[in-house]
């Protein structure tokens, strides 16, 4: 929350982009060339998302401090 927003979209944003691409195909009268571009972008995005999801790891740190002052 305090980190400066990076240019690379977050995983949540990428997944939203993929949903938006799918929604684009629902509109009537789409141009076939545009459709093919969107298709390729969508497939690549989906693959990238899957790779990220598979590779993601958590970082677990046990804090050194003691919490035993009287509260």
């Amino acid at each position, binding site marked *: *929350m*305090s980190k400066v927003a990076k240019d690379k979209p*977050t*995983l*949540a944003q990428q*997944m939203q982009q*993929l*949903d938006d*691409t*799918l929604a684009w*195909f629902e509109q009537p009268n*789409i141009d*076939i060339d545009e*459709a*093919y571009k969107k*298709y390729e972008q*969508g*497939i690549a995005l*989906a*693959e990238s*998302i*899957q790779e990220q*999801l*598979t*590779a*993601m*790891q*958590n*970082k*677990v*740190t*046990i*804090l050194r*401090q003691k*919490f*035993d*002052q*009287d*509260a």
Partner: protein
Amino acid sequence: MADPVFRVSELLAVLNQTLEYAYPSVTVEGEIASYKISKGKYVFFDIKDEQGVVPCFMMVYSLRQPLEDGMMVRLTGQPRVTAWGKFSITVRQVAPIGEGSLKRSFDVLHAALLKEGLFNAERKRTLPVMPKAIGLITSAESAGYADFIKILNHRFGGVDVQVANVHVQGAHAAPQIINALQYFNQQDSPPDIIVIIRGGGSAEDLAVFNDEPLVRAVAASRAPTVVGVGHETDTSLCDLAADVRAATPSNAAQIVVPDRHAFIAHTAQSQKSLYNYITAHIADVNKIASQARVRMATDLQAAIAAYGNRLMSARRLLAQCDPKAALQRGYALVQTVSGKSVTTAADTKPGDMLTITLARAILNVEVRYVKSSKR
């Protein structure tokens, strides 16, 4: 040697010194009687069993759970003799014991906090779907912790988990958990979710999570809280004060992060949908193109046929106009020697030489007479 002679206050001082030396702290179990709070600050009660009674005293801020006459409690404190010669225990901590007493204490506090609105649904915040930072408060040696981490790691990644290692039962637990909550909430960047977990245990073990200052600290947390204590059926006041209650530590891990496998399946499904969309569109375009081709072919054929017909008609017409055809039919072409056609009587006179072209011969003839015929 003669017995020492004390003044009264000296006797009391000596007795108290002896007590302090021999029993600096005692832990006693018994039943509460004559419980009262004076001036909102001073708590007085007796602790007793079938054969004895000891008066107790404490300050109200040391009370962490409500007490009532008839409750069984375990207390720790310092025995002393007061200036009025009364034996008393100055209580440092006291907690109900036994399921009956624990339940009564729970009920009293529950009713009070419910009335205050601490458990209201409107206070509950929604958790972020993909947290980046989690503050975990638990005992790092416990099975509950191990289960939580294992399920968290399996389900999702990219989370920075800070673990506050605390007691989760006994007298030190509640203050430590409160300190850990404060620690996380006071960070420059508090975690997206604070999780408090402990595994199953006895009613007394779990009573920590009915500790009033702790329950209030959970309710007051800046960061959203998830509390997962005990088993499915255990509900503590901390559970009720939290933003989300987890049935168990494992359930807490399921609540705080999504399942990456479900997301992966969803993206695979999206790829299938994209493929279906594009092939449907290609099929559409193909269909339109082939329909156009068929139309073009039909139109072209029709046009060619039409021209063909016209050509044939023109040829026939032309053929009819071909002078050779007339000759074949027996007609003759009559011309003067200069090549001019003879069609009327005026075109020639007797004695002229004419050329007659037949189908397969040419005659050179002299005119004998000319007679006009009107048709």
